[in-house]
């Protein structure tokens, strides 16, 4: 059984637990009070929702004051609705462009999980029957090219690379070129990790994108920003500054299989409407999945349900 199946199973268990929890505990109709709302606040902040969490809590408090919310069991539904509304437009996949290739440029800060996400994305696209070419555009970090090369070998996909220190834009150009001549469906281009505050590196990203469009007008068709799900409120800054350098079309939320809930995405969406397209769930190649807002929100609400069922069991 693959890891993903395990994850799915675990998720199913969680769902079961939630629904059981909701039925047995919250349906008792316990009255809502300030203390419960405080606990809810803690749950949301602990999931990195930040000021977005603060806003949702304000909505809960207002609804409580207006006697619209009176019982604890009304909270999960209310919360889900509010949180889902903030994720509108998320999910989905990459639109395949005709004529091929579809050019996908991948960027992100250092250590966010770009290279691994690219390998997973390539595997994902291959599973759907597409041919893929990789471009090793991280010519800066020591051994980054080697890392992607190893992935390419394991995947059995061609990789376009140049020695370390080469101009990343020229690697991107060559990768698009190779994809065109091979008639590949997709070309995925890696870039070096860069902190969004480094202006010259942001300008470099802009240049890479520009050079790609010189080889193939209209490209890159997708610019995916890889975010580390354990990142806190800085996530919003990252999205904002990266999309200034090059129009980011979607987000990959990597490392979501950890204890981190990735709730900082909500803060990001307050300022920027870029959709989350994929989530990285594990260390294996097939652990990249299309983003599902519902299960994402469920995972955030879940600790509150557990807390409440614990409370109820204690009394």
């Amino acid at each position, binding site marked *: 059984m693959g890891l993903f199946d395990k994850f799915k199973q675990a998720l199913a268990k969680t769902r079961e637990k939630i629904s059981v929890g909701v039925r047995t505990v919250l349906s008792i109709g316990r009255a809502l009070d300030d203390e419960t709302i405080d606990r809810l606040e803690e749950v949301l902040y602990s999931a990195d929702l930040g000021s977005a969490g603060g806003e949702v809590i304000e909505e809960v408090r207002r609804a409580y004051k207006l006697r619209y919310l009176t019982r604890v069991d009304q909270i999960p539904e209310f919360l889900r609705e509010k949180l889902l509304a903030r994720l509108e437009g998320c999910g989905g996949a990459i639109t395949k462009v005709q004529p091929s290739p579809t050019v996908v440029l991948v960027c992100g800060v250092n250590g966010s999980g770009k290279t691994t996400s690219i390998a997973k994305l390539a595997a994902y696209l291959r599973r759907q029957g597409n041919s893929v070419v990789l471009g090793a555009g991280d010519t800066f970090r*020591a051994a980054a090219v*080697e890392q992607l090369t190893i992935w390419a070998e394991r995947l059995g996909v061609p990789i376009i690379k140049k020695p370390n220190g080469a101009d990343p834009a020229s690697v991107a150009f060559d990768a698009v070129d190779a994809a065109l001549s091979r008639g590949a469906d997709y070309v995925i281009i890696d870039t070096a990790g860069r902190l969004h*505050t480094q202006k010259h590196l942001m300008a470099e990203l802009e240049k890479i994108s520009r050079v790609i469009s010189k080889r193939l007008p209209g490209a890159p068709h997708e610019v995916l920003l890889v975010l580390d799900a*354990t990142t806190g*409120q800085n996530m919003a800054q990252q999205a904002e*500054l990266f999309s200034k350098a090059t129009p980011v079309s979607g987000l990959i939320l990597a490392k979501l299989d950890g*204890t981190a809930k990735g709730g900082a995405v909500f803060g990001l969406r307050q300022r920027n409407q870029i959709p989350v397209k994929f989530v990285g769930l594990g260390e294996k190649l097939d652990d990249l999945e299309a983003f599902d807002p519902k299960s994402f929100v469920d995972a955030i609400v879940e600790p509150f349900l557990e807390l409440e069922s614990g409370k109820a069991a204690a009394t």
Partner: protein
Amino acid sequence: MFESLTASLSKAFKTLTKNDRLTEANVEEGLRLVRQSLLEADVHFSVAKDFCARVKERVMGEKVLDSVTPAQMFIGLFHQELTKLLGEHAAPLTFASNPPTVWLMAGLQGSGKTTTCAKLAAWARKQGRKPLLAALDIQRPAAIEQLKTLGRQLDIPVYSEEPGAPAPSSSGILGGMLSGGAVRPAGIGERAVREAERRLLDLVILDTAGRLHVDDALMSEVSEVKARTKPHAVILVVDSMTGQDAVNSAKAFDARLAITGTILTKLDGDTRGGAALSIVQVTGKPILFAGVGEKIIDLEPFHPERLASRILGMGDVVSLVEKAQEAFSEEEVTDTATKMLSGNFDLDDLYQNLQRMKRMGPLKKVMGLLPGMSGLPPEMMDQIDEGRMRRTEALFLSMTAWERKNPDRIDVARRQRIARGSGNPVSAVNDLLRSCEQMRKQMKQLARVMQMAPKERTRFLKDMERDMKRRGGP
């Protein structure tokens, strides 16, 4: 987008007047604002709550001082407490009396372990040590290659063992490597220590594998390495942009490995770094270093008071002052200041000032250190144009020494040549000369004002203000 903490606190305390005491009633709103600010800086929820509750006790009963506003005073008290807390357990990394010293580096994937290992080795060498880097990360593709490359760049030896070809298995590509992975790194670690003994190297830095999150396999692997190499320090590497999860991972690592301290990485970004407070709180272990930048030399000693300012959103004034001190020598400063104030400066002096500014580092980095600036909307930060500074520099460099000394003698032909030489339009040359002239005038005026008697000065300033208004100036 967001006001700085000081500004919102000022609003909260507007009812407080001098000689008032801070009471439960009037600090409530202030506490809420500080807690909000801590949460936005990624301090863990319960840590922020505890911290505020604790400081509240200290704050109450304090008399508002004449010299500062209640808001400043309030934030100052928090700043003091935060600094104390962040630096409470401060202890330098020590070397064993019986070499080689062994340091074990641990952390989650992507926290910056490998880069930090290299930075730390470079730092230790500066302290007169002979380090050996050891690649124990047989997990991530090309991690060994990365450490080797860094070692080559630094000319620091790296101990590694070629990974056996991973057996492809149906359970996935990583499956073959995961099995038995708990044993191998420990063996490599042991052999690395022996290698150091043999080559008379007195420090071994072990780079271990990271995982996506704290799991049993990771912990068993690192525990095994620890048990068999008996490191003198176990150092946790943490990404300073980490959110609330920092508490969980720090706790888990400390419980299993009894860490010595933490190194915070990627502090050169615009993160406020609240995770650091959570980590210090839950582990009770010091922060040893701060990693700033991609360059291998970018490891800074940790300064609690600076991080405290950052977490509270106050900017990093101390760093700025230090940077300025490094960039400007004292004589230079007095020299320039006298010249500038007399109004007798020329383009040479302006150029030298520009050079000193450059020595302080990228303008944006410097701006980010100023109080209140970290709260500026990004659009405004974007107007700080490094490119413009470089273009101005090009203008200076396209002038002859004589021209720099005699800005008012630069005629049209010279202007055109300077413009061509620096790749700027002639208007840019004109702008520069005009602003130099303006500055000279203003400085001369200022010097005159400084010498006036106080009464005369007030009258003069009022006149000037009226004058400005009439002209529609600022």
